């Protein structure tokens, strides 16, 4: 099952990149996507728990616009910090213990923190997050833990309504 899904995904990606439908390209596409799928289908899909994963994907799609908006806002913040005549930079190190269990959740949180400017993830694992914040305001944004609640809400997957109200 996971082999089939991986090979279909790989082949559609091939079509997307090549955009031509000559015999030789299609054939080599099929052959190479089968080889890639054989080698990596267990990494790409893993152990599928379809219900949880679907819930996670939908929640992630709803999380994306918020994240993008945060990135845009925070980029203006960085631009302001860079261009302000006085050096307003006041770096801080923030440490906290994440409340997240899966590896993918850790990665999502670390990337979200790094992408929203003002904060860089220095160390990320299940025991401790070390964040370097550029000034007091972005450090507070991490401490109040809004992003972590959102990522946790994604991680929960299926139980839709309960988690959403807390965000």
């Amino acid at each position, binding site marked *: 099952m996971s082999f089939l899904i991986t090979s279909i995904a790989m082949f559609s990606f091939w079509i997307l990149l090549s955009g031509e439908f000559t015999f030789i390209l299609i054939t080599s596409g099929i052959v190479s996507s089968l080889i890639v799928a054989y080698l990596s289908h267990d990494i790409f899909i893993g152990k599928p728990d379809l219900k949880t994963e679907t819930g996670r994907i939908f929640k992630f799609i709803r999380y994306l616009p918020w994240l993008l908006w945060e990135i845009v806002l925070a980029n203006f913040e960085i631009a302001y910090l*860079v261009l302000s005549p006085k050096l307003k930079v006041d*770096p801080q190190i923030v440490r906290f213990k994440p409340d997240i269990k899966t590896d993918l959740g850790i990665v999502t949180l670390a*990337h979200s923190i790094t992408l929203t400017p003002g904060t860089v993830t*220095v160390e990320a694992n299940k025991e401790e997050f070390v964040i370097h914040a550029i000034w007091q305001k972005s450090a507070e944004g991490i401490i109040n833990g809004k992003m972590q609640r959102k990522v946790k809400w994604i991680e929960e997957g299926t139980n839709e309504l309960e988690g959403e109200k807390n965000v």
Partner: protein
Amino acid sequence: MDIRTIIAGVFLGIGGFFIIVTAIGIVRFPDFYSRLHPAGKADTIGQALVLIALMIYEGFSLISVKLMIIVIFIFIASPTATHAVAQAAYLKGVVPWKKKKKDKK
């Protein structure tokens, strides 16, 4: 002039502005960690805006889909690289610059 060309131009302008800000920030900020902030991120949105401008200019075709894939890839790869560099410095023991003498951990 086509309206699409104008919108694409505006996006290119904003993207270029962010990339210039990145460059100034790398020069101005005091230490290694704070230099990562503009380098890793204003950069991301600058590149994303430039590529979005190209997508608008191109219209909906296979090329704009490929540009979209590049944007997504940058959004995944850029924080990973920033994090890798920051973690390497942290493990090596680079001490973050502090404005005042207050220890906040």
